[in-house]
């Protein structure tokens, strides 16, 4: 007998006559209140992340500032990352490789 058959047979023997149970999902579903960005911000900060809230036009500058603050000269982005304007000259987008 293979171990697969052995395990399945043991399981079936163990469960003979055991009644099934019903699953009640009385917990809260996804939040219906919009605009909980403040709560999200607070939660992310709680994990000791640095959160910057900027508008779309400010993204490239903010990224460049954060990279410069780390002294980073190269960064890698996965395919499909948003391109917000052209990256500042201090850093360049390295080609992403596919396996």
């Amino acid at each position: 007998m293979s171990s697969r058959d052995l395990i399945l047979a043991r399981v079936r023997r163990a469960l003979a006559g055991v009644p099934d149970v019903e699953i009640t999902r009385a917990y809260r579903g996804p939040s219906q209140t919009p605009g909980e960005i403040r709560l999200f911000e607070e939660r992310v900060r709680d994990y000791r992340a640095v959160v910057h809230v900027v508008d779309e036009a400010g993204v490239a500058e903010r990224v460049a500032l954060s990279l410069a603050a780390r002294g980073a000269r190269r960064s890698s982005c996965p395919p499909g990352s948003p391109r917000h304007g052209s990256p500042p000259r201090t850093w360049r987008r390295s080609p992403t490789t596919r396996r």
Partner: protein
Amino acid sequence: MSVTFLGMPATRPFPRNAARAVRDSQLRFNLRKATRTIRARRASVVAEAPDWAELREAGRAIKEHTLRNLDRYLIQLEEAVTAAGGRVHWAADGAEANRIVAGLVKATGETEVVKVKSMATQEIGLNEALLEHGITAYETDLAELIVQLGDDRPSHILVPAIHRNRAEIREIFAEHMSGWGRPAPEDLTDDPAALAEAARLHLRERFLKTRVAISGANFAIAETGTMVVLESEGNGRMCLTLPRTLISVVGIEKVLPTWRDLEVFLQLLPRSSTGERMNPYTSTWTGAAEGQEFHLVLLDNGRTGVLADEVGRQALRCIRCSACLNVCPVYERAGGHAYGSVYPGPIGAILTPQLRGMESELDRSLPYASSLCGACYEVCPVAIDIPSVLVDLRARARHPWPERAGMAAAGWVFERSGRLARLQRAGGRLRRLVPRRLPGPLGGWTDTRDLPEVPRESFRDWWDRTDGGRR
């Protein structure tokens, strides 16, 4: 029946291990600090969820339903994993799982593997078994690394190095890292950030070099064949994605029917475990990624025996969160090593004797490693009634000889009504000789209690004599 191995040899009984552990004041200090910190964090994030009771009830029911239909869900899981390009292996016990994994690693031609923290592989002693085949397994979880470098044993499900403080960890790193790879920096301090950085540099080399990884899984979704690993450090994700071959050893009770069920367990587990709203990294993978090989080893190792037990089977609902350890007054003082199993604390006290049997003195003593205060039941996110299982196991453990002798004598007397009647008459005649206090060591009991008075005659004699009170 063969004896199930649980990662550690069963040696001295719990009370003797505990007596030794509580004399170690450093250990007690480390444990007290760590368990109380996690306990407080858990309490505050659980209090935040207004529907905690409902989540807990759903978690219990989903697990119970899954276990009730385990054969069906295991087959569904196997089909889904296979369809997604993975290979499924079944291991009836730890030795078979170790053989399967060693064979898979050998087939790759590699002699080194990286590991994601996993209870299942610890339970079956995989690292030691691989070493016999000339394969070195490198633990990549920070606490597991501390245990491995220190040639130590885990003492907690979630934080296996909970018994170590940072000064001890610094010493272990400085002394042993060089033997396993990149050495610790010369000027290593016991600052947590410096220790983490030393581990990061040591591990990074390992991740990039190693081509085989071994993991467990917190959940396995039958519907899609998806494995789920929750972690805090990101080491797991490195192991799951970088190597060419990934082998996951997963207990058969880890299966969940649907992807939707994760909405319950991804709320229950992090809050119960690390006291976080969400763990930092949650990785899911379905079958083999392009260019990668994926093997799933489904492990029984005593689980079907537990499943057959009407009272004890609820232990299989466990999601290894360790909330019961952190809240347990016995664990807080005795520490994890006293339990002689990779599963310590209250859940270990019910899981170990069920998986391993109660042949050894240690395993018979584990159901007594509790004051039955019930705190473990209260915090359990899948409502395992640990105290009830403990009491049930106590009734089944072989008891000490004076107790067995007393019970055998009582059984002999109660077996025949004539024997009982003769003994009762003898008792009635000798009633004046019964002392108010019991002699010797039994006296402690009567210090605060009166012995019940022995009646002049038994109820049956009275009934016969008076014809039920009519004469």
